[in-house]
């Protein structure tokens, strides 16, 4: 009974860092400031549905979906090989997690140097007498940066899900006539679904809200949703509009997550958010 006191610091932490900021976002989203007085307003929310904002939103979603799908396609084979390798896969895993020990911005800056018009890739291209290519400040550069940064978040949950599949299920499937392909699609894929879903979430959400990657690698050309929110707060100083955009996006994200986890029945495996 008395043990519940142990949870109080955590509760305080939650209130301070999660509940209060969320309430502040909601407060700013539904209020407007005119001539020094603050009143209830829906005009900020309505602002989300303007053409410019929706265009940015669509582009962000498109890039995030691309990033997530490519991450999945890259991560699954890697996780599969790691999970089924006979040698100690934990040591192998370190090589994939190692870049994460470096600062996020630093890692992204590294790509700046690689992709720059005088960067490593272009130097190599020039060696063959070809003209430099515009690599930096493109959508592809942003996509590359996102994939590079978020790939480990896809590998790890899939790897964990794969290692949790009991060996004897593969033997049972083989015993019942399944060859390697059938085993993969009827056992491996469905049973690693919880990992795929949490990997999906862990890549999709940060990539839809990223602003530093698009700022560094996309320049002014690539305005993403994260940049838009940041602009509202930092440059326009319009906390109300910024909060409204954040709020609407959060709601949309929760809805999509809910649909996704419901659809995959991931709740059963206790891996999902719901």
């Amino acid at each position, binding site marked *: 009974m008395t043990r519940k006191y142990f949870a109080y610091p955590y509760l305080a932490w939650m209130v301070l860092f999660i509940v209060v900021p969320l309430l502040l976002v909601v407060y700013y989203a539904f209020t407007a400031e005119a001539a020094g007085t603050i009143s209830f307003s829906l005009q900020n929310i309505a602002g989300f549905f303007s053409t410019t904002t929706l265009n940015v939103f669509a582009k962000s979603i498109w890039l995030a979906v691309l990033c997530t799908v490519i991450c999945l396609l890259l991560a699954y084979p890697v996780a599969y090989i790691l999970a089924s390798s006979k040698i100690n896969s934990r040591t192998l895993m370190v090589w994939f997690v190692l870049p994460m020990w470096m600062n996020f911005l630093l890692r992204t800056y590294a790509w700046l140097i690689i992709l720059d018009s005088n960067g490593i890739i272009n130097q190599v291209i020039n060696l063959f007498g070809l003209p430099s290519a515009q690599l930096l400040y493109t959508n592809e550069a942003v996509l590359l940066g996102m994939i590079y940064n978020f790939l480990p978040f896809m590998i790890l949950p899939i790897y964990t899900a794969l290692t949790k599949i009991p060996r*004897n299920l593969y*033997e049972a499937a083989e*015993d*019942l*006539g399944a060859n390697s392909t059938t085993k993969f699609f009827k056992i491996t894929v469905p049973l690693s679904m919880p990992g795929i879903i949490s990997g999906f979430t862990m890549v999709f959400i940060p990539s839809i809200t990223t602003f530093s990657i698009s700022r560094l690698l996309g320049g002014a050309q690539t305005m993403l949703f994260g940049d838009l929110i940041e602009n509202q707060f930092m440059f326009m100083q319009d906390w109300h509009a910024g909060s409204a955009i954040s709020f609407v996006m959060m709601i949309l994200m929760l809805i999509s997550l809910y649909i996704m986890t419901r659809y995959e029945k991931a709740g059963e495996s206790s891996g999902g958010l719901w």
Partner: protein
Amino acid sequence: MENNRIIDIQNISKSFAGGTEALKNINLYIRKNEFITLLGPSGCGKTTLLRTLAGFEQPTSGKILFNDENLLDIPPYKRKINTVFQKYALFPHLDVYGNIAFGLKIKKFDKATIDEKVANALKTVGLKGYEKRNIDEMSGGQQQRIAIARAIVNEPEVLLLDEPLGALDLKIRQSMQAELKSMQQRLGITFVYVTHDQEEALTMSDTIVVMREGEIQQIGTPVDIYNEPKNAFVADFIGESNIISGIMVKDRVVTFSGSTFDCLDGGFGENTPVDVVVRPEDVNICGLEKAPLKGTVMSIVFMGVHYEIKVNIDGFTWLIHSTDSANVGSEIGFYLDPDDIHIMVKG
């Protein structure tokens, strides 16, 4: 070769990477429609032998014929052999129907045939109408039945069962034993059953193969194995036994515990040290004056049908099952009939 042999195991050996020899030159044939049990303590190689038949292990050397075909050339998924796994290995992401239909779907049967076969298999294991249940809603006993249904629905020629009742409690285990046996007779499938439980082996099998440290100790019917164990290990492992060191004086005469006895065995030579095996229920209590063996009662436990009496003679504790009672500390005498004394080469 006799044509009722379905599986012929010839000189099979298996060593694992660490150098452990799991199977040492196994020779064994399995007849059609036979209920054969591989029996032995853990680590005796019985599961390895079963997994070799299933195809999950490749033997280091030797040959296995399946209907006169070389079985080892056939990958597991093409063998007409199905397995009931020790921990069931049911697919958690599929319901009961999905689990049982797994093999049939791979074999591309049409929906109506699959439905019918699944319903029949469920009927066979006594779970009619359970198609839509989830695996995790079912008890251990029910999961075991699903695992059996999933295997037999494919109509295998040979069904391998790896300690299928090990995880169940005594009551369910006993009723499942009887059910498995009648299922085997009804379906006419060859069962290869692995267990470490000697009682299970004795009650269900047509043939028992007793194994120890990768070697076959004895092959025989339950009655043969129980009454005529080939060595002290088998005698000790199958049922309870008194195993006493003795001297074979000459054919049909043996001395142990300070007395000389007539017996039915011979061919050991003269004055050879041997192991003498006597089943506890074959010891006959009699009056002290006529008894060739006398000792002090150390303990007596009522077991229901009989008393379990422990008697000390010259430091050896005799185990006796008798319907007669005796007082702890008192001296009792007993005798042995010649056909109840089993002589074995000293192990």
